[in-house]
């Protein structure tokens, strides 16, 4: 009898942890961060150890789980540079060069700590499986594993607010568990259209000691696009969608 009582007690503690469906939670986090199809403006700022800053303004559009495109609208030296991602395929179009070239998710079109995968980020559920989920105080702790080798980071450790179901911190790791960078999600803001999400993502990296990059979200709006705008041929015209 005593054994049964102890077993019931253990189960009553353990069951809530196992009751959380990591995949469902991740889906919810994805939808809380962005609508499935949207347009948004972001400012990317690289900050060097001496305090010097470089800023980039980026307009991006997304459709479904695997289509995202964007164009730099400032500074003048980057204006018109557009990027496209279709699943694992990524391209960069430089107006001066006049034709799109294939790039990889690990590269960075702007330099600094953010790479292309951070800027052209798809839904987490599109690229990662939830390998484990735990409750830690007021937060969920999710361990995510890349679905394929084509994904920029092999593993993610994601901390999310329990109530808002929004990420507060993400560690990006190699397969061997080496930390590549940490993303900090800050200042939850109401963007209208029932989009309430962090308006700032800060990142630092042990690979870039003393350097920091910040992403500030200005406008996020649900918007539907035709599939044809997510094509190589349309890349020079992405700015016309603003």
């Amino acid at each position: 009898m005593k054994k049964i009582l102890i077993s019931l007690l253990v189960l009553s503690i353990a069951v809530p942890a196992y009751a959380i469906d990591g995949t469902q939670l991740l889906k919810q986090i994805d939808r809380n961060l962005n609508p499935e199809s949207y347009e948004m403006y972001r400012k990317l700022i690289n900050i060097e150890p001496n305090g010097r800053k470089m800023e980039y303004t980026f307009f991006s559009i997304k459709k479904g789980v695997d289509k995202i495109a964007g164009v730099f609208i400032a500074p003048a030296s980057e204006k018109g540079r557009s990027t496209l991602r279709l699943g694992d395929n990524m391209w960069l179009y430089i107006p001066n060069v006049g034709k799109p070239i294939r790039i990889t998710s690990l590269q960075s079109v702007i330099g600094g700590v953010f790479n292309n995968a951070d800027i052209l980020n798809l839904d987490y559920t599109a690229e990662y499986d939830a390998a484990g989920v735990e409750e830690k105080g007021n937060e969920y702790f999710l361990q995510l594993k890349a679905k394929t080798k084509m994904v920029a980071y092999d593993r993610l450790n994601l901390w999310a607010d329990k109530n808002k179901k929004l990420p507060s911190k993400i560690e990006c790791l190699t397969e061997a568990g080496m930390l590549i960078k940490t993303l900090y999600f800050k200042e939850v803001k109401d963007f209208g259209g029932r989009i309430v999400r962090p308006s700032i993502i800060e990142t630092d990296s042990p690979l870039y000691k003393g350097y920091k990059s910040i992403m500030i979200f200005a406008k996020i709006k649900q918007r539907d696009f035709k599939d044809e705008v997510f094509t190589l041929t349309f890349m020079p015209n992405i700015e016309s969608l603003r």
Partner: protein
Amino acid sequence: MGKGLLFFLAWVIIFLGSFAFAEEEYKFDLSEIEKKPYHLGGYLELRPILFGLDRNASLYKLKFFNRDEGKTIEEYDGKLRLEGSLEKGIARLFVKTNFDLQYSYLGWKHNEPKSMIYEGYLSLKPSSSLSFNFGKQTLLWGKGYAWNPVAFVSKPKDPDDPELALEGYITASADYIKSFQGPLKTVSITPVIFPVYKDINDDFGTVNKLNFAGKLYLLLYDTDIDLMAVTGGSRTTRAGIDFSKNITPNLEVHGEFAFINNQKSRVIDSQGDISEAKSDAKSYLLGIRYLTASDTTFIFEYYRNGAGFSHLEMKDYFTFIDRGYNLFLLNRNNSLLKKAASVTEGNYGRINPSKDYLYLRISQKEPFNILYFTPAISTILNLNDRSLSLSPELLYAGIKNLEIRLKAIGLLGGRGTEFGEKQNDYRVELRVRYYF
């Protein structure tokens, strides 16, 4: 190095140093993302160049046979690029102008007025699937980095600086795009009407011809594939195919194949006899782009130029120039040099005129955590005569809207080789661009 060039370099370094500390505080103003119906921008470029002349080289003799400019010459290039666009409804007018000013041992020079408009066209977009462009535009086809044998309707690019903007041609074109689910994700069709008449694209080929070109693009099994062709009489009919694919996230492979029907060639032998022949030419390119974990990018390409000259043909051409130069030294008779010059333009004098080349570029992004700094080294190897060019460069773009590039090109090769017979032994240049 000339004193003038040294003074200029010192001035640029001092000027940029003061610029670096003049950065303003960051702010995010929503007015920055407000879209205006018009746009004006561009850049101002200054480029002092020092050339180290090879006074024994055939091409030096061809150009400088009647003048002595010493061992080095300086050149100061300035460029003003202006871009403007105006949008209303489905229409967009775009103009890109280019004003080049040059000071060299020949004095002041600027580009021809008709070359000042690089692009200028009206674009109509009735839908996201369909667009039409009318006017002067650059249609750069192909996947190669240094060379594009399938770029049938654009001016040839310079493998020493493959990312330079090219002047366009006056054309009418359309783009129709269709997306699908499944392995075939995208199909797009680009038909082009290419007129060649007096004062319209007359440098393209035979005038008074209306040419037609077209490109079909497919994204199939995550592979970019293009099929293209041009016909109409200004140049002989040609067709091609290219592809590009990521094998892994950090390894891309690409290739091009071009078939040129009845390509004409003019060959001069060492005695000065010129023969003309027509044959079908097949050119192709195979390349990779590889990114290492430490952000080093390798671009490696092999280029087979089907319309190129053999090593022996190149050697004969250089031998004939040397004969012409010796005749000039003997009795001031430049008739043979004139004859050699007549087969140079657009023939032996075109960019990379030989048959087989290798290209390698290694660039390192932000070494030692120096943001926006990219050192690189590129080489073009002529496989037929084993001569090569070697170009180290340092690029810094860490100051808002300013880009600084210091580049050198060294040419290595024996007598009778492509790079060994160029007029220069080396070239050093500083390029400073300010975008606005």
